């Protein structure tokens, strides 16, 4: 025995230990693999010995080799041997090796169950500790099942060292063997209040992880955690608890309120950045997630930290010189952006600054943020900045990221933020010059999309695409750039489809038939060939107009010369199209030689425009009589027979398919919600065609397909820039344009002020323009009545203004008149002290059957005394009533909420409810006030005139819808002659449009049809003739009569 030990010891002296191995590897840098293979051979020998010390040494070396990437799975059994050594030294190494090398599919693991159980119950706590640590790495479902009970017992071990390890490993056990959770949970909960802080924090860790997966089950622990949070000073534990609450609060909103105080305290008191970050993150982000907006609101309120303030705090992080904080600040910011975009947007400067950061991760974060921050106002500026970065960027991945982001940003919500499409096309063209990008197809699809959907841009787009085609060699010259040649696909198609816009179609045709084209990918060649044919048609058309017929023949010859190249293409589609077109051209040539004019017929091949179709068009096609879409075409097979034959288990899953589609299940609310969401989306989409309800009504009655509304999107292109565009210039142009707009606005304002309307100027006076003030250069005409308020704000305002203006003029006159009549009373007031009120109809709001009319009154003090205690009162009629605050009597006046120093004017608004709008209304009213110096009550009488015209809203209408409306026979007819009107016809129309809110539907020589609509949806149609007679139709004859009277009055006054 002694001899054996001695022998073993001597052997050991010559063995390599771990240090020797490491040193050896470091000394054999050149032939490391060879050296290690000899070492592995040695290890194999060592493992064969009985001496456990030798084996442990070998296993230790193997663990090292495993880390270097060598396969040691063959030694798994030896590792188990070392694990089961009674000596801690070897056991430790054995378990370490096992934890590094074993995984679930290691088959010897099942041999370890009993050994591990023995170690777990060892009197030596370090044996147990080592076993637990090892087990945490290689626990399998089997081990978890077999050992769950033992570990559970350890959770109540006397030594905290064991308890905390047992608690932590329970999480792994739960994952592998979920059944153990229920019996273990009470004990785990107990551990939350363990006297040892280590055990406590372990329990918090485990429950936090569990709660993240299924928060519902842990709500009952909230009070306990709350206690922990307020008592613990351990940041590590606090972070976990806050995380846990982040998961719990969405389920129990009341919790949020309770948390506010302790969290606020933490935020204010902690010096640990990690804890602060966690608090801010949890409070504002995890809790602020959309499902509980009310909670987030209350939290913000209670914390008296509005999101802006939170963003402010984040701004401090971002501005920090520590890159890590900067990164985290941006990360948190992007989460806030989802819920509170406005508050983040004000920090655009900072985000843009981050784009210049040296660190790519920070730049990418900033890019993510930018996507949500663009607006009409800043889009160009931001994209310009991004373009600069594209030029500077090293490394294609980041540049590609930039490229996709630019396109994402510009195209989001259907180009919502683009005001100038020429600029966008130029950006796209600039992007094609990127070296080696993978996103050619993305650019191409954008080009196609814009060219098809924005009609006005086509001329410009075609010019650009022609240049691209001409310079195709620049794009394809380098094989690396193959990705970008996708752009040529778009270029060729656009040039072909919209060839009528080409300045020099012949040149483009030649460019498209160059031999080099044959090196392009097949699908692009196919588009080239097809569109060459379209171009050919266009060229022929222009050439046949000339007297010289040879040019046309030469063109045909060019086609015949070049096309065979494509006929030989390996790509089937190219081949097919080329040979088809080649034969066609040959036939054309034959005809040409006989002096037959063919251009018309050739272009007829490609005639017809591709139009976007209204999304609801299909709905408007009436369902043919006798067709019941809900009935079966073939009776479904009777369920009984098939079910009897089929085993139930298989059939059960498919059953729902047999039943009718369960449309009923989507409840009304859900539908309404979806509809709302859809409307919102459509409203944000400038190219979405909105059906006007008036025409819709008509369409439903009209059978046939020809009335499917086809979109007309017309944009006016204000400028033309020759040559390749530089997107920069657009930024400048845009700036100029906006400035001009602003200037005009100001001018208008000044004028207005001169017209004693300074009170109203307030809104526009503010220096920075608001988002709504920016009008797109390419105005998108949308026929709309359905637009939700948000997007139509701008328009509405304008309408309002017009209305006011007109109304005002009238009122003024009216008043003057009035003054004269009541002159006596007023002169008595004071010498020259006269206020003028100008009631202005401002907004009309539907409120069930009654309508609200808001009247803006401008008070101007023309005397030189101070006026105060003004009271406005109107004698109500049956139809129109002044809205008074609750509790006041029907004859009480309303206090005007301001006083007037001499020479100052101000505006007040009063709400009236109106029941019927078909009659004009005159309301008598009085204004009482006190003149400061004399402190006497004075009184001023006035009349408020609600004309029928003021209830009309200018509404555009299509001529076909107009015709249908007239044909429908629902409308009553009336006519009027205007006597003594002596003005050009278009002036006359303009006057009617301006004063009476009509729009011209169609004008044919000496007649014009006009349309308007009342706020209650009455259609009013006019046919105005040069002879100054008006035939009118309306579904409400009284309204019509009154409107006509008012029109007549307008013209009698001039």
């Amino acid at each position, binding site marked *: 025995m002694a001899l054996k030990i001695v022998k073993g010891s*001597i052997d050991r002296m010559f063995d390599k230990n771990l240090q020797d191995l490491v040193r050896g590897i470091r000394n054999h840098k050149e032939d490391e693999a060879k050296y290690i293979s000899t070492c592995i051979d040695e290890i194999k020998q060592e493992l064969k010995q009985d001496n456990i010390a030798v084996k442990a040494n070998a296993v230790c070396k193997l663990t090292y080799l495993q880390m270097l990437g060598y396969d040691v799975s063959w030694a798994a059994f030896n590792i188990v041997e070392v694990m089961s050594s009674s000596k801690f030294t070897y056991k430790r190494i054995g378990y*370490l090796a096992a934890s590094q090398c074993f995984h679930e599919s290691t088959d010897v693991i099942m041999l370890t169950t009993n050994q591990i159980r023995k170690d777990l119950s060892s009197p030596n706590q370090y044996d147990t500790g080592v076993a637990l640590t090892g087990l945490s790495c290689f626990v399998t479902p089997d081990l978890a099942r077999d050992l769950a009970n033992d570990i559970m017992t350890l959770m109540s071990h006397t030594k905290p*060292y064991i308890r905390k390890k047992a608690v932590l490993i329970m999480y792994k056990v739960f994952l592998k063997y979920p059944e153990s959770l229920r019996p273990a949970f009470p004990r785990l909960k107990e551990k939350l209040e363990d006297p040892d*802080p280590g055990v406590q924090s372990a329990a918090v860790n485990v429950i936090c992880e569990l709660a993240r997966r299924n928060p519902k089950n842990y709500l009952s622990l909230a009070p306990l955690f709350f206690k922990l949070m307020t008592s613990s000073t351990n940041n590590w534990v606090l972070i976990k608890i806050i995380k846990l609450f982040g998961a719990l609060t969405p389920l129990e909103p009341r919790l949020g309120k309770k948390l506010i105080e302790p969290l606020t305290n933490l935020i204010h008191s902690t010096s640990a950045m*990690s804890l602060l970050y966690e608090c801010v*993150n949890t409070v504002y982000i995890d809790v602020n997630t959309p499902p509980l907006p009310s909670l987030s609101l209350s939290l913000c309120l209670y914390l008296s930290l509005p999101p802006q303030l939170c963003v402010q705090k984040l701004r401090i992080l971002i501005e920090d010189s520590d890159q*890590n904080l900067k990164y985290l600040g941006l990360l948190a910011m992007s989460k806030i952006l989802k819920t509170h975009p406005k508050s983040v947007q004000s920090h655009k400067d900072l985000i843009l600054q981050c784009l210049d950061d040296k660190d790519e991760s920070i730049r990418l974060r900033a890019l993510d943020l930018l996507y949500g921050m663009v607006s009409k106002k800043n889009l160009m500026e931001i994209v310009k900045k991004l373009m600069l970065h594209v030029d500077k960027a090293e490394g294609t991945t980041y540049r590609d990221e930039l490229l996709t982001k630019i396109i994402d940003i510009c195209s989001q919500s259907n180009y919502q933020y683009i005001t100038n499409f020429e600029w966008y096309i130029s950006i796209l063209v600039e992007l094609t010059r990127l070296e080696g990008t993978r996103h050619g197809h993305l650019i191409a699809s954008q080009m196609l999309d814009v060219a098809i959907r924005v009609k006005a841009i086509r001329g410009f787009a075609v010019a650009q695409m022609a240049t691209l085609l001409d310079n195709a060699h620049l794009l394809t010259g380098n094989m690396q750039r193959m990705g970008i040649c996708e752009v040529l696909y778009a270029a060729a198609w656009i040039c072909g489809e919209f060839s009528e816009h080409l300045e020099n179609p012949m040149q483009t045709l030649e460019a498209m038939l160059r031999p080099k084209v044959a090196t392009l990918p097949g699908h692009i060649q196919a588009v080239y060939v097809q569109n060459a044919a379209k171009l050919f048609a266009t060229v022929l058309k222009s050439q046949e107009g000339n007297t010289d017929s040879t040019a046309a023949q030469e063109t045909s010859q060019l086609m015949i010369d070049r096309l065979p190249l494509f006929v030989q293409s390996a790509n089937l589609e190219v081949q097919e199209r080329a040979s088809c077109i080649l034969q066609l051209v040959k036939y054309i040539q034959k005809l040409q030689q006989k002096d037959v004019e063919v251009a018309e017929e050739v272009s007829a091949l490609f005639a017809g425009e591709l139009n976007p179709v209204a999304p609801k068009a299909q709905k408007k096609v009436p369902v043919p009589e006798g067709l019941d879409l809900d009935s079966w075409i073939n009776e479904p097979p009777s369920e009984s027979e098939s079910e009897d034959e089929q085993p139930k288990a298989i059939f059960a899953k498919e059953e729902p398919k047999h039943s009718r589609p369960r449309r009923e299940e989507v409840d009304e609310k859900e539908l309404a919600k979806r509809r709302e969401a859809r409307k919102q989306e459509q409203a944000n989409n400038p190219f979405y065609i909105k059906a006007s309800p008036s025409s819709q009504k008509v369409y439903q009655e009209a059978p046939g397909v020809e009335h499917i509304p086809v979109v007309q999107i017309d944009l006016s292109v204000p400028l033309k820039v020759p040559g390749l565009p530089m997107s920069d210039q657009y930024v400048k142009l845009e700036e100029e344009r906006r400035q001009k707009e602003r200037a005009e606005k100001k001018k208008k304002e000044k004028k207005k002020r001169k017209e004693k309307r300074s009170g109203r100027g307030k809104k526009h006076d503010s220096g920075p323009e608001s988002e709504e003030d920016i009008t797109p250069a390419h105005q998108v005409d949308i026929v709309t009545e359905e637009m939700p308020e948000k997007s139509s704000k701008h328009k509405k305002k304008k309408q309002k203004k017009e209305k006011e203006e007109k109304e005002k003029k009238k009122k003024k006159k009216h008043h003057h008149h009035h003054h004269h009549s009541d002159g006596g009373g007023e002169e008595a007031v004071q010498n020259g002290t006269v206020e003028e009120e100008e009631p202005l109809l401002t907004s009309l709001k539907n409120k069930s059957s009654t309508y609200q009319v808001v009247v803006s009154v401008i008070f101007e003090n023309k005397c030189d005394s101070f006026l105060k205690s003004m009271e406005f009162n109107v004698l109500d009629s049956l139809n129109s009533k002044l809205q008074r605050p609750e509790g006041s009597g029907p004859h009480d006046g309303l206090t005007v909420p301001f006083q007037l120093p001499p020479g100052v004017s101000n505006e007040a608004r009063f709400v009236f409810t109106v029941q019927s709008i078909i009659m004009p209304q005159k309301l008598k009213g009085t204004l009482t006030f006190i003149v400061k110096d004399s402190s006497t009550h004075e009184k001023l009488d006035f009349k408020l005139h609600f004309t029928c015209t003021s209830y009309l809203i200018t509404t555009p209408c299509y001529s076909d819808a107009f015709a249908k409306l007239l044909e429908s026979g629902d409308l009553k007819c009336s006519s009027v002659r205007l006597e003594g009107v002596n003005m050009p016809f278009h002036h006359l129309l303009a006057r009617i449009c301006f004063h009476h809110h009509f729009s011209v539907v169609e004008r044919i020589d000496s007649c014009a049809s006009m349309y308007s609509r009342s706020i209650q949806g009455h259609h009013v149609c006019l046919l105005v003739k040069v002879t100054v007679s008006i035939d009118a139709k309306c579904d409400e004859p009284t309204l019509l009569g009154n409107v006509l009277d008012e029109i007549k009055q307008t013209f009698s006054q001039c």
Partner: protein
Amino acid sequence: MMHFMLLFSRQGKLRLQKWYTATAERDKKKMVRELMQIVLARKPKMCSFLEWRDLKIVYKRYASLYFCCAIEEQDNELITLEVIHRFVELLDKYFGSVCELDIIFNFEKAYFILDEFLMGGEIQDTSKKSVLKAIEQADLLQEEDESPRSVLEEMGLA
């Protein structure tokens, strides 16, 4: 929960790896190689966080050694940095101003320390003192194991 922790040198040599989720050997190698490449390519002034696959990577360089942890989406990056720092402090206390060579030659000790500090990807004990105490006592136990043998060794030599 932490998914794994890697220690590697500036030259791209792995010094320590600890996996807290079951991962196949082949995937481990691939992930390690990929991550080392990414982290080593980063410049010193860059932030310590990366998004990689569906994990967040938090790394920090101490002298020539990179400590690199992979955490989940909901985890706190800053606390992970502190975990790394705490581990370095523990190593430093244990070895006495630790250097890369200490970890290379005593890699099993480094593992023991890590195992006392983290378990199953969670912090086991937030107190430095108690971690070090546990290590010391386990080491004592080991020496008790070994001391009789050295006597025998001497006997054998004698």
